[in-house]
């Protein structure tokens, strides 16, 4: 029992100062992930080399792909005198050796704390000619003691949107699609949906073919995927923006609207039936197309599967944790399946989460939910001890609880460090949802098989 110290939540002394087994990681990881979704972009970590090394490892452990990023390699000196010299020297080296199109600089706790002003240093870099002709630099402050990895993702996305899109007089018949933090396969699925709807779109970021790149026998520092610079530039002339995921994309969508007068519709990440409905409608409306029959056929297939499965879901209790953009629509979907989310936890702070959860779970007396610093795995474990659940859904960190409490566990979200293949199968859109719901049902039914008495063990279920 690794977590035998956990008690029922009601018996736990009030914790004032402490996060136990955090359910989130820090901002730069998100900034790195977002930057990898831009073609030819090298993320750069402005801080000590440890942070950079951790963040790359974290992404590699999840995506099972090489993750490239450079670091300013702070020394004790830089922490006293500021990191400007390090960053300037770093940029010279990076453009000369690694030849990226774009360097996407993010800060770390350290550079934030000593007060390095990324904007000022980057301007100086440009003024001093450290950024070669035709190459670019973007930057996003990502102090980790504010927000979480999702915040870092949002900040970097905003940085790209502030840098590249240009409004000309020529409107383009296309929409912008800002994606929250999902798997590369999900990004690919979003593009497939756009193609089915005959909508021309620019997806930002786009980690497909970057973090699920095919094996070619070569190491490619910059894989083929990723949103390109011309694509980003053209975003300023799009008809509208659909921003999927409040926490990850809202700031960028607002920035784009302010800058290029491209209006946006905020949706959830399309996980689950209703969220996908809303997403498809938003895209159809903004792109002024009608929803093609093929999409409805996919939806019909999903609904058909749900009717086959519903009997197993009804009344089952579930604990969910992870990033708000992912678990808000997921919670909605699980309620629609007849399940009862009794514990919902997200380490990412932000009032929007509680607002959405109030709306979704307010009528379910058993449901407990919280986000922010105190919303960690320890809290969730306490809640589960008090009100046991039939299923836990979340990232790898839930495996300890699942094992101790002997509860089926579905890995979903970031990071997944102990399974391979999750980055290849989407969970967005109707087909993605079908994939997800099948996995949920598998978990529940495996448990039935595992625990069935011999006389109740059945071939046909």
């Amino acid at each position, binding site marked *: 029992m*690794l*977590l*035998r*110290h956990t008690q029922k939540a009601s018996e736990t*002394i009030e914790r*004032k*100062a*402490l*996060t136990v*087994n*955090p359910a*989130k*990681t*820090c*901002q*730069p990881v998100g900034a790195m992930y977002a930057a990898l979704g831009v073609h030819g972009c*090298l993320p750069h970590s402005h801080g000590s*080399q*440890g*942070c950079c*090394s*951790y*963040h790359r*490892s974290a992404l*590699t*452990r999840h995506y*099972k*792909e*090489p*993750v490239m*990023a*450079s*670091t*300013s*390699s*702070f020394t*004790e000196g830089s*922490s006293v005198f500021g990191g400007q010299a390090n*960053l300037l*020297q*770093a*940029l010279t*080296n*990076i453009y000369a*050796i*690694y030849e990226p199109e774009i360097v996407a600089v993010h800060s*770390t*706790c*350290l550079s934030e*704390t000593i007060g390095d002003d990324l904007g000022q240093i980057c301007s100086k870099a440009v003024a001093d000619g450290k950024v070669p002709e035709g190459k670019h630099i973007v930057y996003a402050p990502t102090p*980790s*003691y*504010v927000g979480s990895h999702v915040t870092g993702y949002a900040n970097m996305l905003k940085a790209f949107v502030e840098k590249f899109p240009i409004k000309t007089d020529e409107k383009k018949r296309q929409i912008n699609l800002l994606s929250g933090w999902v798997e590369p396969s999900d990004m690919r699925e979003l593009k497939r949906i756009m193609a089915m709807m005959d909508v021309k779109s620019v997806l930002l970021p786009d980690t497909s073919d970057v973090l699920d790149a095919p*094996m070619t*026998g*070569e*190491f*490619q520092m910059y894989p083929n995927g990723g949103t390109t610079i011309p694509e980003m530039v053209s975003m300023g002339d799009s008809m509208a923006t659909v921003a999927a995921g409040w926490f990850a994309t809202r700031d960028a969508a607002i920035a784009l609207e302010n800058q290029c007068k491209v209006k946006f519709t905020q949706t959830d990440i399309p996980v689950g039936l209703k969220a996908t409905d809303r997403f498809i409608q938003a895209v159809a409306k903004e792109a002024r197309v009608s929803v093609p029959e093929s999409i409805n056929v996919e939806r019909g297939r999903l609904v058909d599967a749900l009717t086959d499965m519903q009997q197993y879901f009804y009344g089952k209790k579930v604990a969910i944790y992870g990033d708000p953009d992912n678990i808000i629509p997921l919670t909605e979907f699980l309620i629609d399946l007849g399940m009862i989310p009794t514990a919902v936890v997200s*380490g990412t702070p932000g009032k929007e989460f509680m607002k959405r959860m109030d709306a979704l779970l307010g009528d379910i007396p058993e449901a407990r939910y919280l986000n922010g*610093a105190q919303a960690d795995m320890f809290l969730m474990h306490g809640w589960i001890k008090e009100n046991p659940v039939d299923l836990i859904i979340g990232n790898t960190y839930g495996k300890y609880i699942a094992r101790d409490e002997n509860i089926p566990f579905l890995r979903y979200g970031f990071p997944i460090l102990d399974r391979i293949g999750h980055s290849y199968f989407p969970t967005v859109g109707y087909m993605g949802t079908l994939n997800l719901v099948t996995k949920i049902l598998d978990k529940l039914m495996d448990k039935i098989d595992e625990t069935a008495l011999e006389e109740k063990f059945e071939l046909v279920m």
Partner: protein
Amino acid sequence: MDILKERKNQVATAASGSPLNLDCGKKSTAGAVSQRACVFCGSRVVLYPITDALHLIHGPVGCAAYTWDIRGSLSSGSEMYRLSFTTDLSENEVVFGGEKKLYKSLIELIDKHQPKAAFVYSTCIVGVIGDDVEAVCRRVSKEKGIDVLPVQSEGFNGTKKDGYKVACEALDKLVGTDNEAQLPDYSINILGDFNLAGELWMLTEYYKKMGVNINATITGDGRVDDIRKAHKASLNVVQCSGAMMHLAKLMKDKYDVPFMKVSYFGIEDMSDALYDVAHFFKSEELFKKAQLLVKEELGTLIPALAKYREALQGKKAAIYVGGAFKAISLVKALRLIGVQTAVVGSQTGNKEDYEVLKELCDEGTIIVDDSNPNELSQFVIQTNSDIFIGGVKERPIAYKLGLGFCDHNHERKEALAGYEGMLNFAKEIYATAMSPVWQFTRHHKMRSSVALDQTPVDSLPNSKE
């Protein structure tokens, strides 16, 4: 190939005669895609296996989250060390200081978990906001009556290697706090093994069979109480990974406990590790028992290795690991199973290490300090290597290049030390080098194998007729 200008002196080729002036121990060049980690990382991985201590990371949440249970270090008792505690510094504390939060956290945790001791790790940010961690530790220590030890591991203070040193300094404060204990004859401490995949248990088994008494294991499967009385042992046996060397030296100066460097990796080194201890105690009996043990082990191991050696003959390996000492052992162990080392490098090696490597390796072997993915992949292609041995960040690169891979770092699941370990190592190298999957990576494009049928469709006989 392109090598960062500042890095020119960190890459060399083994050639007989020429001195190898590798410029190592340098901070990574700014802008490098370095594979290195920080001081905190070094301290944390080294101290973390002390199982019945509380480990609290004073800093922002990230530093803790990345080190939550990433080292596969096993415990035979307490599992407390596997929990991750952090003060999760927020903006408020960054401005007004985090001492209060640290104090409260410590009190709360100690009350709840009743640990034998507590380690408090400083991260970069603590170094900058200037919290007096030591003072807080002293206060809590007094109030709670247990050792609360500050670990001054601000990340920017150097590399992972510097982190080992800091960890040793923290341990040094614990050693010597129990003066009552009496240890039996032939008592040793094992330093520098972290019980990955239970390796330490194998080693202690060997020593016990010889008649040697193991006092403290520092830090694999470590116990606070054992470490307290570690100075009573007659000898420190230090795995020369470098991690615990500093502690051995401190104990020599302070308590006059002699130390001896050993390696448990590969047949010769493992056997020497046993014989050297017997020699130290000048005991004929210990020596005889060690001889017997080695003979027994080799009797089963050597025949078992033969098949792997035959199959692997002529394969080439690229090595990139944390410590150079590990690299040295790996070169030897690979040679034992017929594999030649074509590239070898480390994150933290020193000059002497690289000299040893140069002597050891075949002519033409590329030797490199603090490398990056671009370089590594070019070396691998250039030398036509078949297998890569490295850590988490190297694995996907190896696979992208179509190479077998063996994890010789924190994430390894098999014990690789000792005699059993040698067999495991051979098996692992063999399994990855021989996987049939590589047939697909070598020909990664589909080609139509038959000429496409060019017959026009309307000339085909109509089945309905």
